[in-house]
């Protein structure tokens, strides 16, 4: 089990923090937040592409393989705003792009 915060992907690019739900942290074998190097512009698509490139076992778990759409029971939050329905190509807030604030991937609170 690795600590995502201690192992950024590379130097130079923007360092984006991502908070994964419990089950996806287990799948990716990480503890705590994940730190990713993302080349500007820092969009949802760019962050998710970087996340899946670093942790390929997460492919298909956040975005459907067939449609590429966000899974229905997952939401994206950033800087206290809901980005779930935003364009995947819209730039995330600067605080997220610079790693001051995380991108949160949240599982719907539902089920038994």
């Amino acid at each position, binding site marked *: 089990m690795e600590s995502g915060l201690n192992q950024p992907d590379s130097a130079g690019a923007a360092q984006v923090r991502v908070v994964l739900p419990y089950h996806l942290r287990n*799948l*990716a074998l990480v503890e705590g937040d994940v730190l990713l190097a993302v080349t500007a512009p820092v969009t949802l698509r760019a962050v998710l592409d970087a996340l899946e490139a670093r942790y390929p076992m997460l492919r*298909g778990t956040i975005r459907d393989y067939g449609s590429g759409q966000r899974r229905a029971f997952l939401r994206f939050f950033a800087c206290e705003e809901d980005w779930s329905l935003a364009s995947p190509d819209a730039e995330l807030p600067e605080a997220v792009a610079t790693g001051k604030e995380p991108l949160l991937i949240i599982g719907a609170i539902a089920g038994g």
Partner: protein
Amino acid sequence: MSSVRVLVGTRKGAFVLTSDGKRKDWQVSGPFFAGWEIYHMKGSEADPNRIYVSQTSGWFGQLIQRSDDGGKTWHQPGLKPGESEMPCFPDKAPNRFLYDTSSETGKPLTTHQWYDGTQHPWEFKRVWHIEPSFSDPDTVYAGVEDAALFRSTDGGESWQELSGLRGHGTGAQWTPGAGGMGLHTIILDATNEKRIYIAISAAGTFRSDDGGQSWRPINKGLRSPYMPDEDAEVGHCVHHVAMHRARPDVLFMQKHWDVMRSDDAGENWHEVSGNLPTDFGFVIDVHAHEPETLYVVPIKSDSEHFPIDGKLRVYRSRTGGNEWEPLAKGLPEKDCYVNVLRDAMAVDRLDECGVYFGTTGGQVYASADAGDSWAPIVRDLPAVLSVEVQTMN
């Protein structure tokens, strides 16, 4: 020294139950993949240490897991245990189940019938059943919802649809059952690798004689009063089909209602419900050494999914159907209102055939004497979705 390994998929994880050939003392390991739905797990006969698992979630979709050491460690195919590097990506992906729409081999991704009779696009949801090849541990089949058959020849690292099934012509008439439109039964013929049987709720039973390239419905004789044409070619809610491997032309079916039998590889079916107290149910299986000995668990009705009068009973026929005897020794005699789902019964291959089933109440019952008496291996697991057995000699 012989032993058995019982693979149990539940609503909240996987469990492995092991015992020696006496089948009295059991070790329970798990939960593996805790918190995930484990629709099915099954071991390879070609390599008993190879076990495949369907791990699924309404939140995160479908994953395939694999063990190469008999269930001690697990990994996604293509990923080494304990490591996060997956070199097979992006060309391969163990959780990528894409319907074949290629012009060469596939069909346009058309529609099937929805609950209200309208047409609805095919949408992949999960893997219901995994069936490893008899001869090659890297070849494995997956039955999925919405109904289609996939095959992997690289140990589950990548999957390709056998699109001749979904595209053979009747797909537009297939309808989901209450639990979805799942391909839940895959039966391989150990004597003829070209022959494959599958079953779908609610479409019916289908057969391929060319290794899965082409398919046709085999439902003649089934009658389903909930359909406008009750003996239609497709649309029947087949719950499960079983076959004894020594007689690959003889099939037994637990339909929504009715227990059925075919003696000609599914060309014709006839009812063998006989004296069962109700012929609704989900599971059906065949004794490992007696091809005419069958097991079912009668469930009260399609409106009340629990045993009649709160008495959990397995029924056994030693005559290939029609004449059934209740098996109750060791099973709850009152206040039992669990269900036994379609993939939750299995038999071992020891000399004295063992029979196993799991309930939605979390019990897994075992009989080491072909059903004459029963005892719980475990009582308090999450709801059991599937039970499979590996016999090691």
